[in-house]
C-alpha cells in the first residue's frame, strides 16, 4: 500500500491502460484516418519517380522503405517544411530552448550555484520541459480591469512578430523561408513592431508595474532603433545590396567584422538593448518593478512571451552572424556522403539494402547549416554572458549612451565604409 496514493490498485491501472489504448485505436480508426484521407484529397500531392502520389496509396507508400525517402524529399521541398521545420519555427525554437537551458546553467556556474539539477537526472536537462508543462497547466489570470482583447492578443502578436523576424534569416545556401530582395529593410520594419506590442500589452494590463516597464521598454527600444539602423548602413554600403542572402554571399572570402568592427560593436550593444538583456534590462528590472511589462502575465501567456523573447534573441544573434560573421561560409568540414551507399546500398554481410532517395541533404547545406549554428551559438553566448557580469545601468545613462555615443560611433562607421569604398579597398576593383 502506497502512502502517496492509498487507493492505487495495479489491476485498475492496467485496465485503465488498456481502456486508453482501446479508445485511442477506436478514435484513430473512426475519426483520425478519415480525417487524414480528407486532407490528403484536398492538398496537392507530389509527383514521385514520375508517378503521382494518390491519396489511396499514400499509406502504402509511406510503409514501403523504397518510397519513403522520396516522399520525405518531396515534403522537404514544400514551403510548409521551411516555415515549420528547418529554417523556420522548429529550428529556431529548438535553438531558443537550448539557449534557455544554457543560460540558466551558465549563470549558475558563474555565480557558483548548481542551477537546474534534478529534472532528468543528468544536470537537470529536462528542466525546460518541466517548466513548459507547468506553464501550460497553470491557470491564466487576467486582471479584473484589464483591456481584455489587447491583453489576450499581445503575447500572440509578440510571438508572431518574432517568428516573422526568424523567417527572414538565411541559414544555409537557399534555405530561407522568405528570401526577399529587401530583407534588411523588412528586418527594420519588423523590429519597429516590438515596442508597439510591448507598450500595448503594458497598457492593457491596467496595472502600474507593467505600465512603468512598458514605458521604459518604449523609451529604450525607440531610442536604440536609430543606432541599430545606422550601424548596419556600413554593411549595406560596402555590399550594395539589402538582401540578406546577398550580404552573406558577399562574405565568401572575409567577414565584414574585419572591416567594420565599430559597426559590429554598436550593433551588438543595440542588440542587447533591443533584447532587454542585462545591462539594459530596465523594462523587466525585477528588483525594482517586479517583472516590468511581464508582471501580469501568467500561465501560457507568460510562456508565449518567453518563447517570443528567445526567438527574438536567436533572430538577432543570427542577424549578427549573417551581417558581420559571414553566415554559412566556412571551411568544408562535413565529410561527403559515402558514394557506395547511393550506388550499391548498405551491405551487411549477405544482406544489402538499396535505399533510393539518399542523400537527404547536400554536403553544402549541411556544412553551411553547421557553420551558421556554430557562429550563432557563439554570438548567443556573448549575449548571455553580460547577465552574469554587469549590473543594470540607469535609464538616463542608457538614453545618453544611445543618443550621443552610439549615434556618433555609427557615423564613424559609415565614414569608414565610405573611405574603404572610395579608396578602392572594397567594391569594384578592390578585394572582391
Amino acid at each position, binding site marked *: 500500500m502506497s502512502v502517496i496514493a492509498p487507493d492505487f490498485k495495479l489491476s485498475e491501472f492496467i485496465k485503465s491502460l488498456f481502456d486508453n489504448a482501446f479508445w485511442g485505436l477506436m478514435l484513430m480508426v473512426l475519426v483520425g484516418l478519415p480525417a487524414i484521407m480528407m486532407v490528403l484529397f484536398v492538398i496537392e500531392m507530389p509527383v514521385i519517380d514520375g508517378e503521382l502520389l494518390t491519396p489511396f496509396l499514400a499509406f502504402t507508400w509511406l510503409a514501403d522503405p523504397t518510397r519513403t525517402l522520396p516522399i520525405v524529399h518531396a515534403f522537404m521541398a514544400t514551403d510548409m517544411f521551411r516555415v515549420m521545420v528547418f529554417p523556420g519555427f522548429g529550428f529556431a525554437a529548438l535553438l531558443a530552448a537550448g539557449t534557455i537551458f544554457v543560460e540558466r546553467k551558465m549563470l549558475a556556474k558563474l555565480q557558483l550555484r548548481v542551477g537546474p539539477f534534478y529534472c532528468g537526472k543528468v544536470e537537470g536537462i529536462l528542466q525546460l520541459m518541466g517548466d513548459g508543462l507547468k506553464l501550460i497547466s497553470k491557470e491564466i489570470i487576467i486582471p479584473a480591469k484589464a*483591456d481584455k482583447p*489587447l491583453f489576450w492578443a499581445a503575447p500572440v502578436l509578440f510571438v508572431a512578430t518574432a517568428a516573422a523576424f526568424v523567417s527572414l534569416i538565411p541559414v544555409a545556401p537557399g534555405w530561407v523561408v522568405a528570401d*526577399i*530582395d*529587401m530583407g534588411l*529593410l*523588412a528586418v*527594420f*520594419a519588423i*523590429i*519597429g*513592431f516590438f*515596442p*508597439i506590442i510591448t*507598450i*500595448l500589452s503594458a*497598457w492593457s494590463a491596467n496595472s502600474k508595474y507593467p*505600465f512603468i516597464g512598458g*514605458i521604459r521598454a*518604449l523609451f529604450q527600444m*525607440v531610442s536604440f*532603433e536609430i543606432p541599430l539602423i545606422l550601424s548596419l548602413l556600413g554593411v549595406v554600403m560596402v555590399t550594395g545590396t539589402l538582401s540578406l542572402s546577398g550580404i552573406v554571399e558577399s562574405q565568401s572570402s572575409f567577414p565584414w567584422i574585419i572591416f567594420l568592427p565599430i559597426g559590429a560593436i554598436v550593433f551588438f550593444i543595440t542588440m542587447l538593448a533591443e533584447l532587454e538583456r542585462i545591462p539594459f534590462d530596465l523594462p523587466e528590472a525585477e528588483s525594482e518593478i517586479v517583472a516590468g511589462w511581464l508582471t501580469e502575465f501568467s500561465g501560457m501567456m507568460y510562456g508565449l512571451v518567453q518563447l517570443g523573447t528567445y526567438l527574438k534573441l536567436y533572430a538577432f544573434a543570427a542577424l549578427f552572424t549573417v551581417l558581420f560573421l559571414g553566415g554559412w561560409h566556412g571551411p568544408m568540414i562535413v565529410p561527403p556522403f559515402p558514394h557506395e551507399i547511393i550506388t550499391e546500398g548498405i551491405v551487411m554481410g549477405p544482406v544489402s539494402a538499396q535505399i533510393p532517395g539518399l542523400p537527404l541533404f547536400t554536403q553544402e547545406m549541411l556544412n553551411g547549416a553547421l557553420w551558421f549554428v556554430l557562429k550563432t551559438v557563439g554570438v548567443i553566448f556573448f549575449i548571455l554572458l553580460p547577465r552574469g557580469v554587469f549590473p543594470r545601468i540607469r535609464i*538616463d*545613462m542608457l*538614453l*545618453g549612451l544611445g*543618443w*550621443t555615443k552610439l*549615434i*556618433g560611433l555609427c557615423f564613424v562607421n559609415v565614414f569608414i565604409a565610405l573611405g574603404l569604398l572610395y579608396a578602392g579597398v572594397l567594391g569594384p576593383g578592390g578585394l572582391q
Partner: protein
Amino acid sequence: MADPVFLGLSVITIGSAIAALELRSLVYGSIALMGTLGGIAGFFLLLDAPFVALFQLAVYVGSIAVLILFTVMLVRRELIFKKIEDGRRRLAGIGLMMAVMISLGAVFLDSGIKGIETDEPPVDFREIGADFVVYYWPALVAMALVLAGSVTGALVLARREDTENGGGTG
C-alpha cells in the same frame, strides 16, 4: 477590376480610418490608425513598390504610431482634447471630405490614367537611387543637410549637463 486583395485592403484601410476617427478610446483609435497606415503599405506592395511599402511600415507604423501612442498614454487627455459634440460640425466635416474626394477623383479619372496600359517591370530601387544621385542631387544634398542638422540638434538636446559633473546619485 475587382481584385479581392485590393478590395480587402481598401476595406481595411478605409474602415480603420473611420474607426480611428470615431472610436471613443484613444488607444484603440491609434491602433486603428496603424491599420490604416499598414493598409497603405499593402497598396504600395500591390503597386510593385516593396521598397516604399517597407519604409511605410518602418517609419509610419513603427515610429509615428508609436509617438502617437506615447502621447496618448503619457498625457492626460483632458489637457489635450476638449470634447465638442456637435452634429452639424460633423456633417459639415463629412460633406467637406466628400467634396474634396469627389473632385480629386474626378480629376484623376479625367486625366486619362485609366487608359494607361503598361507591362513594364517595376522600377528597381537602385535606379531610383541612381536618379537621386545624378539628376536630383540638389534635392538630395538639401535633404541630407536638413537631416544632419536635425540629428545634430537631437544630439545637442539629448546632452545633459548635470550628469557630466558627477552629481545625480539620487
